[in-house]
């Protein structure tokens, strides 16, 4: 859930940006807007979607966008489900990646975007990203707005106090693997007496489990969470992190986590691109004290969102117009430049000087464009299934329980498997 909220914020920001950047979009020809020029748009709160929608309206006179910020990404998906089940649906809706599989499984509720020409632009997007919004029958029900990539944000001032290097290249070399990451953490904690990383569940498990070719499902869609070596390895790494005593025990997106970020309660946090703007908002006083280094293991992705058009939408064409204008490669690039937090899903811009030259001042001028692109280039995609979100949450819960000192580390894995079996029945 935390991811969903954060991701939704990111996505919304991305959308807003892309909307703002719509003028620059040139990747695809806009479809004729057909009957209605106005449309209803459901998005997440906290991502300043209104600003982007306002810009879109300014640049496209005559277009009326009725924006509703439903809630966090979870609430938005819930409201969408209720609406699809028999209520008034929006013309356009933002869906966070974790919530997406449930909707992809029921494609009859959405417009197959190929009817508007999505098959002509699908090559603009990363294969493994758009494949998540593509059904087995080939229907495309969502256009990706951003991806997270992976990286580690760290406090240069605290690293210096601990006698660790502060240069992002050297810091990246400290932890080629997660084991090396834990060792670095032990050194930091030994030198300062303070926690190294915010928590083990999100900053270690949720990253490591996303780095490999087979996560909770095998390529043919069978559930393999209990036998996939990638999952077990990631889980054991997280438990090892807990046992090393280097975590601040702050669950991601909790109040204590937000507060601890500004107080230097932890020096390291795994940060996909979408987290950057949130960190800036959470801890404005730490500007210039953070930097970004490569993630242990090198590559991976966490998060991302999609724009979809429900079947019963009244003005699907106007909504599709918005998608093409705000999600073209150039528009996504411009959005990233503006927000610094929404990594484009369109690989054609990954070599663009606007992206490679991008620096983030909050993070000591880290070249975020290059860092996050690198984390995506070596990535091995895996299948995301309808129960991926539930499975992931149960693993996180099991790790958190050990971290908070209530659970038995030796039994945590079996407990997680049992809980998942209860939850999804297989």
């Amino acid at each position, binding site marked *: 859930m935390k991811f969903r909220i954060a991701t939704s914020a990111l996505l919304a920001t991305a959308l807003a940006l892309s909307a703002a950047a719509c003028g620059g979009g040139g990747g695809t020809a806009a479809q004729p807007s057909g009957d209605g020029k106005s449309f209803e748009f459901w998005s997440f709160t906290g991502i300043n979607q209104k600003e982007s929608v306002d810009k879109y309206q300014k640049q496209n006179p005559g277009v009326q966008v009725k924006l509703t910020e439903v809630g966090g990404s979870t609430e938005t998906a819930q409201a969408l489900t209720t609406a699809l089940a028999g209520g008034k649906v929006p013309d356009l809706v933002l869906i966070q990646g974790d919530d997406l599989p449930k909707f992809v499984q029921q494609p009859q509720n959405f417009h197959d975007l190929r009817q508007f020409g999505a098959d002509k632009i699908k090559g603009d997007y990363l294969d493994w990203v758009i494949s998540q919004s593509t059904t087995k029958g080939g229907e495309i029900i969502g256009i990706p707005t951003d991806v997270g990539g992976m990286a580690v944000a760290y406090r240069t001032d605290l690293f210096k106090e601990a006698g660790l290097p502060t240069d992002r290249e050297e810091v990246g070399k400290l932890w080629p693997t997660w084991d090396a990451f834990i060792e670095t953490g032990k050194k930091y904690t030994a030198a300062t007496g303070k926690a190294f990383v915010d928590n083990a569940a999100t900053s270690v498990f949720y990253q490591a489990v996303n780095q490999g070719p087979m996560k909770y499902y095998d390529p043919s869609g069978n559930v393999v969470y209990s036998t996939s070596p990638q999952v077990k390895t990631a889980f054991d790494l997280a438990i090892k992190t807990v046992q090393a005593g280097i975590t601040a025990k702050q669950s991601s997106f909790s*109040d204590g986590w937000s507060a601890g970020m500004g107080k230097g309660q932890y020096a390291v946090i795994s940060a996909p691109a979408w987290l950057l703007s949130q960190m800036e908002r959470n801890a404005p006083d730490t500007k210039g004290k953070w930097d970004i280094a490569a993630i242990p293991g090198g590559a991976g992705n966490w998060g991302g969102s999609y724009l979809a058009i429900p079947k019963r939408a009244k003005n699907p064409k106007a909504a599709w117009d918005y998608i093409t204008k705000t999600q073209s490669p150039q528009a996504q690039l411009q959005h990233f430049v503006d927000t610094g937090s929404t990594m484009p899903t369109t690989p054609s811009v990954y070599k663009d000087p606007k992206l490679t030259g991008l620096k983030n001042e909050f993070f000591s001028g880290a070249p975020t464009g290059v860092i996050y692109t690198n984390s995506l280039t070596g990535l091995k995609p895996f299948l995301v299934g309808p129960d991926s979100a539930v499975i992931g949450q149960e693993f996180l819960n099991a790790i958190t329980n050990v971290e908070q000192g209530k659970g038995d580390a030796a039994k945590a894995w079996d407990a997680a498997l049992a809980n998942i079996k209860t939850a999804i029945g297989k």
Partner: protein
Amino acid sequence: MTTTLSTPRAAGAPPAATTRVRQGIGERLAPYAYIAPFFLIFAVFGLVPLLFTFYVALFDWNPIGEHIFIGLDNFTRLLDDARFWNAAWNTISIWLLSTVPQLLLALGLAHLLNHARLRFAVFFRMSMLVPYITSVAATAIVFAQMFDRDYGLLNWLLGLVGVEPIDFKQSVWGSHLLIAVMVTWRWFGYTTLLYLASLQAIPRSLYEAAAVDGAGGWKQFRHISIPSLRPVIVFTIVTSTIGGLQIFTEPLLISRVAAQTCGAVRQCQTLTLFLYEQGFGQFQFGYGAAIGVALFVLIIAFAALNYVLSTRVRPER
């Protein structure tokens, strides 16, 4: 009802036979017509959803997909589901922790407020209601912060006397206690006023007579106040049972992380929260409906128990 209706008819001048029959029907139907609005609204917003819930509970019901009839499978799954029993025990535990101290506190406070020589009585009585009219969400957020591990007021105070910070929200008892405190805080004033109203109905002469006989404050409370309060005590137990079994907002709001399970290991997930998680988090409407039915049965059972208790209380008066 029949007697009161027939009395004026008998007393008045007898109308023509046909009219009388027509009036008779009209008069007999009139009271039902008067109460009909409530029952119609109840049928639409209460009874129909209730029956529909029973119906949905027999299906594997995806709100945006297929509805597959599976008979009682949801219920057999529920009885085997450790999460359900966990939620049931959490609910009962929180209910006990919040109701018992709340009723005792309210009883004591009502007795104090009823004191004949109390100054500013109206002020004290009215201030009792302030927590009751405060939004539940605001209460939940403030209390959750007070009980926070790192930045909570309570742990700061404990720290002053050298106690290590306690992570209330992560432990079973801590989280139950936290929720119970919130519920108690919200409801004790309301309950106090109910008791107070009842106490004021007791004739002063009883207390005076007892005082003359040499009964002290405690004996007066024990032998005059408590017996007179029995019906209202039963009433508050019934209402707090029904409310307590449906505790939802407080556990949902104390933790922003894993809110639908009230923490990493469902340490304070109540039945209604479990229903919400399954129905609206996982979109398993059929299973969610089955949980709703189970909750319904549980509340009926508790209500029946309360009824038995209250009918046994009455003859004693």
